[in-house]
């Protein structure tokens, strides 16, 4: 679906996005994970043909992005970081209008509104919507023409846990229908849960790219942390796959002297810090 090869771009004279290469296959949820200002939105803008002054190659759905025609957008749905609706029109009027711009028949507006819990607010003006309601509305706007590729920029930011859950389920439902999804986020839980693969992006470069599971595993397996009393409390760590060779732990177990024992897996956040030396937020 997407092939990016040696892609470079900058807003200024200084290099910004440089030498990026990756590909995304059909039906995959691919995440761009990185702190704000990393270039995630910029990269998405290149892939949706809004920035054309790039070097290298970026192919989406068989089209080089800088050579796209307007028909390119029949199969792409974009959810920006901000609302792109007419504020004085109602939600329904907006959705009806935007869906009327495509050749394809629109999905049912009533159904989509209901799916994101806005069925009672369809006749309200968008200017009367809260921030979270606007994000949900803009999300279904991207789904209206049932596109093959969905580009979602921070879709869950600013949503409460219930709505965030609902939106994640809808994203997974789109994937189940065979859609390809590009997801930008600085929320590593969402990334770990949704994405088949994630790219860590910092300062316009991809620092790592793999499935969340492999990335987590790359740090080494989970570790066990245990504590015991011996002139005060002590604690120690041991990788879970080397427990049998930890004599102290074995001794503590056989003498029933353990105070506590926990196993913990590194989170995607730990891995991100490990690889990039930066935190996500």
């Amino acid at each position, binding site marked *: 679906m997407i092939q990016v090869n040696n892609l470079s771009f900058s807003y200024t004279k200084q290099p910004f996005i440089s030498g990026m290469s990756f590909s995304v296959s059909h039906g995959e949820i691919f995440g761009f994970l990185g702190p704000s200002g990393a270039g995630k939105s910029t990269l998405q803008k290149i892939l949706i043909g809004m920035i054309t002054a790039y070097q290298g190659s970026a192919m989406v759905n068989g089209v080089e992005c800088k050579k796209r025609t307007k028909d390119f957008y029949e199969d792409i749905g*974009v959810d920006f970081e*901000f*609302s*792109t*609706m*007419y*504020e*004085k029109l109602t939600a329904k009027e907006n959705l009806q209008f935007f869906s009327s711009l*495509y*050749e394809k028949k629109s999905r049912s507006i009533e159904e989509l509104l209901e799916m994101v819990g806005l069925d009672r607010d369809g006749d309200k003006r968008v200017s009367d919507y809260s921030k979270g309601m606007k994000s949900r509305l803009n999300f279904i706007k991207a789904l209206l023409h049932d596109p093959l590729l969905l580009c979602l920029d921070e879709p869950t930011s600013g949503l409460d846990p219930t709505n965030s859950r609902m939106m994640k389920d809808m994203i997974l439902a789109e994937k189940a229908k065979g859609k390809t999804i590009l997801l930008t986020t600085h929320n590593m839980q969402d990334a770990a849960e949704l994405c088949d693969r994630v790219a860590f992006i910092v300062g316009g470069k991809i620092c790592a790219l793999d499935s969340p599971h492999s990335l987590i595993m790359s740090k080494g397996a989970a570790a066990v942390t245990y504590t015991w009393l011996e002139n005060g409390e002590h604690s120690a760590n041991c990788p879970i796959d080397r427990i049998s060779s930890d004599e102290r732990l074995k001794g503590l177990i056989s003498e029933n002297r353990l105070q506590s024992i926990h196993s913990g897996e590194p989170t995607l956040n730990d891995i991100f810090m490990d690889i990039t030396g930066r935190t996500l937020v």
Partner: protein
Amino acid sequence: MRLRNLFLLDMRFQAKYGFYFLYVALTVIYVVILLALPQSWREKAAAILIFSDPASMGLFFMGAIVLLEKSQHTPCAFAVSPVRAGEYMLAKIASLSAISLVVAALLALTAGIAHLHMVLFGTMLSSVLFTLLGMMVATKIVSLNQFILWTVPIEILAFIPAILHLWGISPAVLKNYPANLCMDMISGASVSFLGLFCTVILIGVLFMAVRKCVIKMWQEAGGIKL
């Protein structure tokens, strides 16, 4: 089909922002003024009124419309939709020209200007020209103040020659100047083929230039605050 939907949206947008209400009110005021004037003044007064409001409202109102759209980030939505820049422009031009034509017709009828079709054709040409100019400026700027500043030179270049021309104070070389030509038509006078040709060419060139500006605006698609 898409063009029709864009056109209907523009009309709806203009209705919600009170454009139609405003123009009903203005038309009533203009008609009252015209009727209060002596019969012999009415034709010239109507020509000035038509030229300076319905025929040129596009300059200011198209700017306002595009700025409002920018503040709501809808250019981003158009940028990633199948809508062509030309369709977007045609719909906007047509929606404002519709208001221009109705108001101009009412004023011309009130004043009893002969050759109504000439008046309407002149109003149409000016409306398209001014709407394109307004759109061009609006795609480039980010605030209402900037917009007002940049439309002043356009107003000076368009209005002063045209109004002088109406009183016959006009050098011969400006006979085919598009603003003067439109003024001629709006006052019910006939015009030369050459002048018409120049005006139509100007509209064509402007259209292509504004199309580039719209595409650029969609790509930048940055948000602004009003």
